[in-house]
């Protein structure tokens, strides 16, 4: 059925496009290649790439075409000995990663194929791609947007979730309606309200798998599954002058999910953690943005309860996610400041964030951010205080410096039992000097002070652009005061290890090549609010991005 669908769709698109006399197209090739060099001291070992075939990588080849309202997207994906899907495994496969055909006519937008879309902020449905963790939750099916009036649109979706080169056969279907109204003339208040609905229906085969699992539970722990789960949301964006206020409330019917904190009794009487439960889920999310003169303020709040929604309840980690709950902490690019990032908790979370940006004058500006995350029963998960000051002489140089305090519940976020909370203070300075419009130097200094986990770190980096095309980088992350988790030598003494990186980047037109020698400590990698624990890495990385 899948191959037939693709064949018919391809025939349809080429028939449609070949009937046109002019075609606009674009393409790109993105490539990552890793050469793995084992380093047992830092823990870069024990995965197949360090022991057998040391070379691995990923390729994404995109082709896009458009003409008179028709558009086509094709993507070929190739994985060879890749550690992207599973950081401790090897994955090789190749095939059609994406096919999408879309057509707009009158007030209707129609698309078939592999669709990336969302309803509201994505809490009840989001199909998306996050390559750094090889998440590709495209909806394989169809979607239609109909503009009923100038103020009201309706969207319908139907399909199945993509699983690498396969399809998860559980049906996902939904509908949403969004409006747009303005009240007043001189300073109008605009509102963009919406309502959404999603249903997922399990196949008989998947239900049989769930029944197989629940059959092994004792009566007191057993819960009865249903084939369908229903989700709905109400959302609105209100805008008035410099104020923008987004609010969303989403609920999920009583659906089966795995609760790792729930206690289950084995048939032998032993109590263990983790079992499938069936509970009503809800998320409330609100974001208020204010802009007054040179001051910008963003306030966010979120309450999440039992909102784990996947294509198949038996899936875990980042597999099969249908809902996307917005993260509630800022994503920082600085190496040490992003070392302990909080992953969104979908079962129990109270989260608040406030962000202030104030531009004092042309040279000075200040950023301040505070976030606090707890479980619903008030177990502290994450607290962050961040402040930075930027001073710049336009077109000449700039210096950003600041401080971050974090309190991070490592036991919850990294599933490491019996470890203390990580309390860290990190100071940083980031200096950019422009020699001229082509040449510049960028330097970073960061120091994290903590007694927990791997202990304290010093990070230094320098990046020199010698021309528009060529730049060199060198950095080092040094474990100045090793902690409990730091590697030890044969006598059990903690090692002060330097993790260096050297690289160069070459840009030419729409092509970019980057090659780096990397030694990287184990850590959490978060992209778009989704996080996972990545093992240490040692080797050479080559990335290239070519736009056609």
């Amino acid at each position, binding site marked *: 059925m899948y191959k037939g669908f693709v064949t018919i769709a391809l025939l349809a698109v080429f028939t449609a496009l070949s009937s046109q006399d002019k075609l606009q197209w674009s393409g790109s090739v993105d490539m990552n290649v890793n050469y793995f060099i084992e380093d047992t001291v830092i823990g870069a070992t024990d995965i197949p790439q360090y022991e057998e075939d040391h070379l691995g990588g990923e390729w994404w080849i995109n082709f896009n075409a458009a003409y008179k309202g028709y558009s086509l997207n094709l993507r070929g994906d190739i994985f060879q000995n890749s550690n992207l899907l*599973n950081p401790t495994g090897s994955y090789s496969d190749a095939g059609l990663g994406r096919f999408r055909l879309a057509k707009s006519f009158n007030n209707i937008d129609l698309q078939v194929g592999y669709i990336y879309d969302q309803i509201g902020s994505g809490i009840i449905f989001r199909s998306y791609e996050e390559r750094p963790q090889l998440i590709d939750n495209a909806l394989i099916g169809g979607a239609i947007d109909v503009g009923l009036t100038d103020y009201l649109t309706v969207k319908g979706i139907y399909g199945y979730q993509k699983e690498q080169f396969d399809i998860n056969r559980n049906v996902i279907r939904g509908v949403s309606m969004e409006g747009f109204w303005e009240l007043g003339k001189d300073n109008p208040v605009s509102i963009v309200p919406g*309502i959404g609905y999603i249903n997922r229906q399990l196949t008989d085969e998947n239900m049989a798998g769930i029944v197989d699992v629940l059959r092994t539970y004792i009566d007191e722990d057993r819960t009865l599954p249903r084939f369908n789960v229903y989700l709905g949301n109400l959302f609105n964006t209100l805008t008035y002058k410099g104020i923008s206020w987004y609010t969303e409330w989403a609920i999920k019917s009583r659906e089966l999910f795995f609760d790792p904190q729930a206690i289950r009794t084995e048939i032998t009487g032993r109590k263990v953690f983790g079992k499938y439960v069936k509970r009503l889920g809800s998320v409330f999310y609100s974001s208020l943005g204010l802009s007054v003169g040179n001051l910008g303020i963003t306030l966010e709040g979120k309450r999440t309860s039992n909102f784990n929604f996947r294509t198949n309840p038996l899936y875990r980690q980042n597999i099969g996610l249908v809902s996307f709950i917005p993260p509630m902490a800022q994503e920082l690019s600085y190496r040490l400041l992003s070392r302990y990032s909080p992953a969104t908790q979908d079962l129990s979370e109270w989260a608040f964030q406030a962000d202030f940006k104030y531009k004092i004058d042309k040279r000075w500006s200040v950023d301040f951010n505070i976030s606090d995350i707890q479980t619903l029963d008030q177990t502290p998960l994450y607290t962050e205080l961040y402040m930075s000051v930027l001073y710049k002489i336009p077109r000449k140089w700039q210096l950003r410096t600041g401080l971050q305090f974090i309190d991070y519940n490592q036991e919850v976020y990294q599933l490491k039992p019996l470890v203390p909370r990580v309390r860290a203070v990190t100071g940083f300075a980031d200096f950019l000097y422009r020699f001229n419009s082509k040449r510049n130097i960028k330097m970073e200094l960061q120091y994290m002070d903590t007694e927990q986990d791997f202990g304290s770190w010093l990070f230094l980096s320098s990046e020199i652009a010698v021309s528009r095309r060529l730049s060199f980088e060198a950095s080092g992350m040094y474990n100045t005061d090793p902690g409990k988790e730091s590697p030890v030598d044969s006598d059990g003494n903690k090692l002060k290890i330097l993790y260096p990186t050297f690289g160069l980047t070459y840009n030419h037109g729409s092509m970019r090549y980057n090659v780096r020698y990397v030694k990287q400590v184990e850590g959490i990698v978060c992209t778009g609010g989704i996080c996972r624990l990545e093992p240490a890495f040692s080797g050479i990385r080559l990335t290239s991005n070519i736009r056609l």
Partner: protein
Amino acid sequence: MRKILVGLLICMLGCAEKEVIIPPLEIPTTGRTVLVEDLTGVRCPNCPSGNARLESVQSIYGKNVVVVSVHGEFLTDPLPESEADLRSPSAILLEEFWRPFLGKPSAVIDRKSYDGFFSMVPNPLQDQWQPIIERELQEPHMADLVVDATLDNQGILVSTGIIAIEELQDISIHIFLVENSIVDPQEDVDKLILDYEHNHVLRYIPTPIEGDPIAENIEIGDISNYTMTIDIAELREEWNIENMEIVCFITGEEGGVIQVQTASILQ
């Protein structure tokens, strides 16, 4: 709009759909036995729960399910409170043999992968273990395996007999030496269990990891015998021979386990 909201609320409640009834647990009655190689470690916080799951399965199916706990290299460094080191060169070798695996605990059930379940042979999803074991217990009973172990001054003499119920091809035999009732600390999800009882701990494998080939073909009704002596020098002082037993199993041409049996050393 009101109708849409009412309809949506009705759907959300999910009242219209009946819940799926869970059928009662049925215990298979064939003579088939199943081997579970449990990749575990004293620093693995989820391993007590995996172990409890396997104990539970054994309480239902008795000796039809044989478990071997493999303390290889991953998450197995002795804890500061540990008195015993549960690792052994054989366990490390066996864990290497099953790499890559996603994490611990992972269970290798009859050395096979199963359609509709986790795709790798070492399966980290505990909830799938019992359904897979039950599926294996319902597979055809291809052979009977009789194992006998006796200790003397030379070592442990292991004698086995394979009786073919179906025609068997490319048969290899595997012998493991395991120890029960080792009380030593174990990490759990929320605490350190100081008096945790470790059972089926793999101590030594005298046969090759891939097994010792013993017959290309065994006709129905034929008996094939195999004997070996585990040299006394291989037994370490810290092992308690009273708590040790032999796990013996046979694999077929594709490496899957056909039958497994245990035998106490001191009967």
